[in-house]
């Protein structure tokens, strides 16, 4: 029991990319709200569901192909070996016995699982929203859990059957739970169960469905439930006959004990979780964490439509298609009063892609906040510090809905919040507002605009006459450097490397050519060819992490690596406010997904519409439009920041030394 409790208190495991056996905590948390609800309900409708829950299904000899228990037997034997005094009637009965036993001991954990599917249809009214999400989890989780069964064939049928027939599925959930528990108890057979799971995983992940589909499934399930209720009674009788005594008696005390213990544990767990969430610096939301996503959705201002064909490896990222909700949103601008109009405008601009580029986005956001703060009045009976922070939080989450924040924006927001938190208590409201506004203005001036100037001054010293500078995409700092170097009369040539689908390099090209610089324009496909000519590579950055990893426009890593292979020095230009104290190892954990259609549509393709249609309908085809990638520090020769020219190994020093000052600023 204690161990269970411990598991409850464990926070959600961050699941990223491929995940294996760490399902339990998530499942736990996803069911937590339910347990308190379904507890009392279950008490009234006890007899019917319970009997067909964990064991009933398993016991019936029709459903159990003997071969399936191959490894189950192993585990049960292991248990038997561990707990010798328990009489062993036979594998199936043993498991069933264990299931109840476990139910007794473990109490708070499992029974709701078994009851979920059989919550009475009468409560569907206000319960429906919850159960939608519930079935969402239930479905995917069960698929995952069933994958932990060593037998492949059974899984397959289960996965296929799952949407239509809720009851057997749920039974298998708990059944697999049983096996899991056994595995935990024995500790030996874990490798047996986890290995097949890994193999099964992609299959189960693929089962993810859209909201509409889920709703349909739920309807089907409801219908099935209604039908099954009668049947369930019958089956209960059968199982009661098959195993007199145990099935009837054992569940009873368990149920009585259940609600109390569970609610307590739930409360503590929630409290612990909340505390933890307060402690942990806000990280990116994991979008495959369904409960969070659902919660976020309820709060959301922006109606998100999910894209259809998701790429498995990037399920944890926000999957929404941007742009199509724009007209809807822009019509709402005068109706919504929770979001300040300036913030709203910036959000829309982010959404539509009118503002791109990290610095521009960050400045726009800060200026919007500035305006919002100017118009802000503290409501009566409220504290400015607290209320303004929640306001800003609201704005930020709105902006996140529009487009995921860049690292630099996160840093700027953190700065602002710190500023708010540090406001002297005795300051009057107008004074406080004025001080905040000036702080924001100073941040923009010092950390972005002035920093850029300093960077330009530093970087120009590295440009000699007769050099060929290669740059990738569009970075405003790099543009400033090139223009300034040209202004002060350096003779050099520029190679602009660009990539689909954004073709941002064209903007840079246009600006440089009009100023009279000698330019070459090419696409990234030709990088290995053109790198021969280059003597320096100048890159912009979205963020630099404290292990020196550069996080920048997708394709940057490729350019840096090719440059390294040709031993051309790679110079990264990045303002220090973009430095982040986190560590980034790959481009999977943190990234942003762009519009998949942008990858799909090829402008010169003649039968475009038709082509798109065939592409859209193909279920085996997934488009991945990654926005960023990460470049390991060994490919970077130098970072030019407002603190001078530093090697990538010095990022943590800057972060450490100036974090304090950052807060002071």
């Amino acid at each position, binding site marked *: 029991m204690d161990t269970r409790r411990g598991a409850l208190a464990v926070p959600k495991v961050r699941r990223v990319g491929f995940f294996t056996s760490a399902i339990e905590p998530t499942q736990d948390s996803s069911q937590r709200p339910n347990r308190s609800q379904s507890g009392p309900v279950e008490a009234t409708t006890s007899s019917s569901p319970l009997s067909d829950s964990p064991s009933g299904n398993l016991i019936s000899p029709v459903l159990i192909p003997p071969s399936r228990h191959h490894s189950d037997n192993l585990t049960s034997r292991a248990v038997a070996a561990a707990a010798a005094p328990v009489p062993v009637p036979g594998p199936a009965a043993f498991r069933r016995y264990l299931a109840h036993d476990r139910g007794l001991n473990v109490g708070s954990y499992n029974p709701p699982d078994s009851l979920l599917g059989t919550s009475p249809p009468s409560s569907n009214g206000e319960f429906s929203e919850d159960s939608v999400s519930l079935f969402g989890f239930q479905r995917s989780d069960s698929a995952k859990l069933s994958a932990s069964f060593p037998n492949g064939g059974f899984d397959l049928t289960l996965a296929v059957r799952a949407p239509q027939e809720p009851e057997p599925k749920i039974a298998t959930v708990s059944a697999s739970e049983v096996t899991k528990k056994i595995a935990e108890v024995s500790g030996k057979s874990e490798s047996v169960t986890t290995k097949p799971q890994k193999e099964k995983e992609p299959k189960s992940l693929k089962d993810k469905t859209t909201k509409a589909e889920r709703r349909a499934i739920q309807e089907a399930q409801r219908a099935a439930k209604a039908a099954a209720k009668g049947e369930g009674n019958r089956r209960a009788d059968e199982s009661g006959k098959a195993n007199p005594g145990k099935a009837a008696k054992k569940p009873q005390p368990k149920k009585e004990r259940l609600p109390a213990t569970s609610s307590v544990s739930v409360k503590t767990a929630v409290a612990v979780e909340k505390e933890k969430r307060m402690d942990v610096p806000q990280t990116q939301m994991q979008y495959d964490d369904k409960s969070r996503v659902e919660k976020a959705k309820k709060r959301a201002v922006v109606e998100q439509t999910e894209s259809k064909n998701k790429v498995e490896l990037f399920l944890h990222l926000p999957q929404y298609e941007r742009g199509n909700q724009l007209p809807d949103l822009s019509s709402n601008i005068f109706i919504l009063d929770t979001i300040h109009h300036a913030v709203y405008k910036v959000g829309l601009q982010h959404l539509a892609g009118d503002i791109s580029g990290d610095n521009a986005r960050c400045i726009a956001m800060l200026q919007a906040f500035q305006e919002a703060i100017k118009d802000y009045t503290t409501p009566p009976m409220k504290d400015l510090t607290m209320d303004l922070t929640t306001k800003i939080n609201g704005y930020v989450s709105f902006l996140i809905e529009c487009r995921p924040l860049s690292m630099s924006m996160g840093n700027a927001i953190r700065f602002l919040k710190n500023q708010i938190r540090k406001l002297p208590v005795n300051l009057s409201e107008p004074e406080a507002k004025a001080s905040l506004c000036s702080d924001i203005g100073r941040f923009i001036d010092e950390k972005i605009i002035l920093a850029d100037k300093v960077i330009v001054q530093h970087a120009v010293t590295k440009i000699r006459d007769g050099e060929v500078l290669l740059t990738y995409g569009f970075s405003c700092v790099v543009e400033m450097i090139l223009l300034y170097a040209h202004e002060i009369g350096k003779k050099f040539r520029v190679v602009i490397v660009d990539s689909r689908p954004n073709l941002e390099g064209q903007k840079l090209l246009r600006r440089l050519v009009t100023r009279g610089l000698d330019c070459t324009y090419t696409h990234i496909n030709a990088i290995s060819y053109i790198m021969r000519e280059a003597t320096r590579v100048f890159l912009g950055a979205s963020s630099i992490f404290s292990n020196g990893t550069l996080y920048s426009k997708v394709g940057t890593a490729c350019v840096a690596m090719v440059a390294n292979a040709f031993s051309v020095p790679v110079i990264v230009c990045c303002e220090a406010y973009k430095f982040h104290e986190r560590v980034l190892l790959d481009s999977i954990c943190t990234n942003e997904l762009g519009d998949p259609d942008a990858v799909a549509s090829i402008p010169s393709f003649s039968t475009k519409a038709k082509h798109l249609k065939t592409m859209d309908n193909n279920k085996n085809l997934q488009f991945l439009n990654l926005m960023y990638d990460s470049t390991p520090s060994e490919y970077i*020769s130098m970072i030019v920041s407002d603190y001078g020219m530093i*090697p990538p190994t010095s990022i943590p*020093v800057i972060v450490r030394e100036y974090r304090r000052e950052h807060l002071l600023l």
Partner: protein
Amino acid sequence: MWRSSASFILDKHQNNKPISLTHSIDSPPPPSASMADENPNPNPISAYYQTRAAHHGIVTSEWLEQAQAAVRRYPDHDYSVSPVSGRPFSVIEEFNNWRQQPDLAEAVAAIRALAAVIRASEATTMMELEIELKKASDTLKSWDTTSISLTAGCDLFMRYVTRTSALEFEDFNSAKSRVLERAEKFGEISCRARRIIAILSQDFIFDGCTILVHGFSRVVFEILKTSAQNKKVFRVLCSEGRPDKTGVLLAKELAKLDIPVKLLIDSAVAYSMDEVDMVFVGADGVVESGGIINMMGTYQIALVAHSMNKPVYVAAESYKFARLYPLDQKDLEPALRPIDFSVPVPPKVEVERSARDYTPPQYLTLLFTDLGVLTPSVVSDELIQLYL
């Protein structure tokens, strides 16, 4: 061979004459602003190289005198530039005086010279003093742009002064004496730094090891001397270090201490690398990336050692840390030197005359400094903490 060749001194002579002449023509109208901008260093052979040569006793005394004579034109300029001080006083002269002391590093000489500026100054506020110092250090730096340790020493001292001026609660005189005190201390620090480095490095020198040494670094010599005094049994391979023959010099010094020494020509480094256990080099400057700038040939030795997985240790005092970040070999101010090929060079043939190269940090294993034994990446950390 090179020492006896008169051609070098002759070159020197010819180069010096016309330049100093033009300067003396220039000097009567005091061009206050333009003088500071243009490099007032009279001779094309870098002063950095002169210092090295002087310290290693390669150059004859009359040569030095000539150099001095060329330099001595400068007091007038300096006087005209800074009329604040009532009497003729030159940082550069002061610096050159200090520079002649064989055991004194260039950076320390620069700091001593700057201290002399403070002593001579009649400034009454810290700000005035700072401006005066800044001017002096700029003159010093522009006098020889090629010397890294000179620049680093000036920067370091300036940094210290500006930090001291933050202590406003003290009155000016005590602040001034503080700064002076600090300047005096620098000389001791530099001497002590060598001791510290020598002691630190003892853990790395084991009995029976073979050490390859390039150039004559006073720190490396100190290390080897200390090891010999500690009765360690080791062998030293000295690369010749053409054209200065610094390696020969070091070999001579080591032989005096009864350390087994073998002399290699510079091109035999790769040949004998497999019997080497570690490489010890000094540094003229340690740059921000953690790489070093050192006598020509260090880079190739480091490359060879790296490819054969031999550790490369650098011994350098912390005042050699410079806020420079060269990206490649050509990214440095070249310090030129005369090279004698002992056969006449055909007239159309170009000669690479650079005296030093840049070794990137990935080829260095550890740096022995008076701050401790550092990996190359820590250099930048130290610099950031010092300068930002």
